[in-house]
């Protein structure tokens, strides 16, 4: 009982307060007490053996998966700094004077995300991109009162499902695309009446860039709808954030967080300052102490559940604070040049891989003829078989979208030899 020091003091303490252990639980009716069968406790060494054994059932592979969770390089010092237990064993900074470290780090996160996205304000995190999307749709409804939200037909099915789950009473309408995957603005115009918001992804779920989001934003604004864009924050090293956006969301997992089998992720939520009072989630503000020192505190809490209860802008309480700190550490480490560099490596090496795959007879990459960032589709009439074939060679290909298509992702983590391993394998596939 190395985590429960008072096991040895319990008798003395009980005597001092004139009680017994039975007294302590005398308010729970006996028929509600249940002696459940739990196994004996294990030593650290036994637990390590157990976990190691389980981990042996996992296979580390050369992987080309992305689709919302990405493998990027995490500089060593970020892992070291995140393991400072003053950060990771703290609760939410309810007492700001003793929590300035976390608060300044989160204030800097908000500032960095605003610099990156061109937005005015940013909350200190949502759970992930998908829940940020759902919260964005709910924000649009609070502003407009309409309950119709437009999404692109080419988007992450997981994110779409989370949106539909969070907003079951909202009419979700899909906007089509043209031959090059670009948002079909004629279709958008037909569907936009009484919409609270329009959502697009840049790059799209299929990895290509939308070339004219300004037109999409203008159509939204002309019809009193807010414009939300979901971004890959790494891409913002080289791709300009769209200026007509009212809300920019995305996943910060690619900024210094491991894949962790899909979580924790980091929901980015940034918007124009006009939306601040209706924005969900915690916000950190700069202020002064009684002694005139600069300091930081959670602010605008009157929007939040512990004050406003059912009238709050969201129910979110615990968020992804430590992940936001990791993202800030990552952006501070990369700086302007570093972020540009990692984005440039991704786009160049992804295009290299895409073209080489397209050159292999039977394969088409990509489906849509547009500039891609780090993801692209690979098509083959027998893709299901190729997926199995690659697995047998220790390669995890892209995310299978249907029987003939997969979504591949290439980042700075793939060496040239990794790419050639993939190409050689694909070339070796025979029907």
């Amino acid at each position: 009982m190395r985590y429960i020091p008072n096991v040895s003091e319990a008798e003395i303490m009980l005597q001092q307060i004139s009680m017994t252990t039975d007294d302590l639980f005398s308010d729970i009716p006996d028929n509600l007490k249940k002696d459940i069968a739990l196994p004996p406790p294990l030593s650290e060494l036994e637990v390590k053996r157990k976990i190691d054994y389980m981990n042996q059932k996992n296979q580390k592979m050369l992987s080309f998966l992305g689709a919302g969770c990405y493998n990027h390089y995490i500089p060593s010092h970020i892992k070291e700094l995140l393991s400072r237990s003053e950060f990771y064993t703290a609760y939410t900074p309810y007492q700001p004077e003793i929590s300035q470290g976390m608060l300044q780090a989160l204030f800097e996160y908000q500032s960095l995300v605003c610099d990156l996205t061109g937005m005015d304000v940013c909350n200190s995190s949502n759970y992930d991109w998908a829940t940020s999307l759902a919260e964005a749709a709910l924000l649009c409804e609070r502003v407009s009162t309409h309950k119709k939200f437009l999404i692109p037909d080419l988007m992450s099915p997981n994110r779409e499902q989370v949106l539909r789950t969070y907003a079951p009473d909202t009419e979700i309408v899909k906007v089509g695309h043209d031959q090059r995957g670009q948002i079909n603005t004629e279709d958008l115009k037909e569907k936009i009446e009484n919409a609270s918001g329009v959502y697009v992804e840049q790059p799209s779920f299929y990895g290509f860039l939308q070339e004219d989001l300004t037109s999409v934003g203008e159509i939204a604004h002309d019809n009193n709808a807010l414009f939300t864009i979901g971004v890959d924050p790494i891409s913002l090293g080289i791709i300009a954030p769209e200026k007509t956006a009212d809300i920019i969301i995305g996943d910060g997992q690619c900024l210094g967080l491991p894949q962790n089998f899909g979580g924790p992720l980091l929901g980015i939520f940034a918007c124009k300052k006009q939306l601040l009072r209706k924005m969900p989630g915690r916000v950190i503000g700069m202020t002064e102490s009684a002694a005139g020192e600069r300091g930081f505190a959670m602010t605008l809490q009157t929007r939040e559940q512990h004050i406003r209860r059912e009238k709050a802008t969201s129910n979110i309480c615990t968020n992804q604070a430590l992940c936001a700190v990791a993202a800030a550490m990552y952006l501070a480490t990369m700086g302007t040049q570093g972020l540009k560099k990692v984005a440039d490596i991704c786009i160049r090496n992804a295009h290299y891989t895409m073209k080489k795959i397209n050159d292999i007879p039977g394969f088409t990459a990509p489906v849509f003829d547009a500039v891609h960032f780090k993801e692209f589709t690979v098509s083959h009439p027998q893709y299901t078989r190729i997926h199995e074939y690659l697995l047998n060679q220790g390669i995890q290909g892209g995310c299978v979208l249907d029987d003939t298509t997969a979504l591949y992702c290439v980042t700075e983590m793939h060496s040239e030899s990794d790419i050639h391993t993939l190409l050689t394998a694909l070339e070796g596939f025979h029907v």
Partner: protein
Amino acid sequence: MYRQAKFTEKLLREKSVPGRTAYSLPEPFGEPVFIPDRLTRKELELPELSEVEVVRHYTRLSEMNFGIDTGTYPLGSCTMKYNPKITEELSALFSNFHPLQDVSTVQGCLEIMYSVQEYLKLISGTDAVTLQPSAGAGGELTGALIVKAFQKGRTEMIVPDSAHGTNPASAHMAGFHVVEIPSNKEGTVNLDALKSAVSEKTAGLMLTNPNTLGIFEKDIKEIAGTVHAVGGLLYYDGANLNAIAGISRPGDMGFDIVHFNLHKTFSTPHGGGGPGSGPVGVKKKLRDYLPVPVVECDGNNYYFDYDIPHTIGKVHGFYGNFAVIVKAYVYSVLMGSHLKKASEIAVLNANYIAQKLKDHYELPYTPLRKHELVLSCEKIKKETGVRALDIAKRLLDYGIHAPTIYFPLIVPEALMIEPTETESKEDLDKFIEVMITIKEECYKTPDLVKEAPHNTAVRRLDEVKAARNPQLTWD
């Protein structure tokens, strides 16, 4: 006395020197890619620092922060227990697996998820579990959406006035009209008020047990009966599960839906605000409403079951905060049957404090508490002008984190104290002694308390100014 580190640490932007770098990356092997001019980023201003500057910045910031590893952290309803270090090391073993890897190659990850589902079913007395919600409030929303899907057409969710703020907020987000009922003189659910609140419109009741006063709802069977009699469902807010884990089960009390805070009861670190994890357990009749996927086992292999007929959908892009789930798993096997002892000592520690402080502060309602207690400073405020907020700030000067304050709303000038099982008797005695000293200070040197804290990185912050003229970025 405690003295926190104090640095005048500049903002990253203020430290930035053009041309400095902290990154290193290989050269690309692909040719440059043409990006249309209108899409090309021309302006981007991120801080430019060397690696050592980044490291010192965050090391200094961490020294101006207080965690459970720093000292006693009796934040009520937050269960700030010690986080065994081995959980960090072991969860990191799984950090490089991608959520969409073919399931045949990640059987170990699925086995852990399956094991945690089974464990939580056993602890809570429920029949099926989803691990997907990212935090307690995410679990509440998931539960409320399940209630909504199951209770087609029922519009009202009943919530006691002592409930956590997330309960009414989650119910509202799921589209319910929130009906608040008052507590009785004992601080528990007012059965008469409940009986007059329930009707054919009632979708459910959200309840914490023990409640936010730390009092066990001993009439829980009757409460459940009242709600079930009109066809309502009972929802268990698991924030206070640390009082009864291994001793009594929500499922046996009549609860139909239960959420767990893995970052409370199951010891995963809270990360200064997150990530947490808020799994939800349900009774058999609600299994078909859980988010997809749930991990199942066919006897040989683990797989994701997406075939859930009435699923509410998804509440996370993938499967939830997996790394947190691994830490909770490690904790569960480390503790095994000692989980019951943890609950017993958590309750003993709270009652020890209650008994030792009840003559110095007011302890409204019954003295017998579970894992937490709520003191009132109303008398002190009347006699000295010192508020609960001031007393909380003064505790910081002694190197003790403040309790939760002004909650629950039904206790004036509330201090909500949850010591957890991991504080030693010496630490509890120190807390008690400091609380008594501060009370004396309230009468002898009230300004000393009103102007606290004195020993933290900064003096008392002007939170009104922060809200009136919000400055939320360094621009």
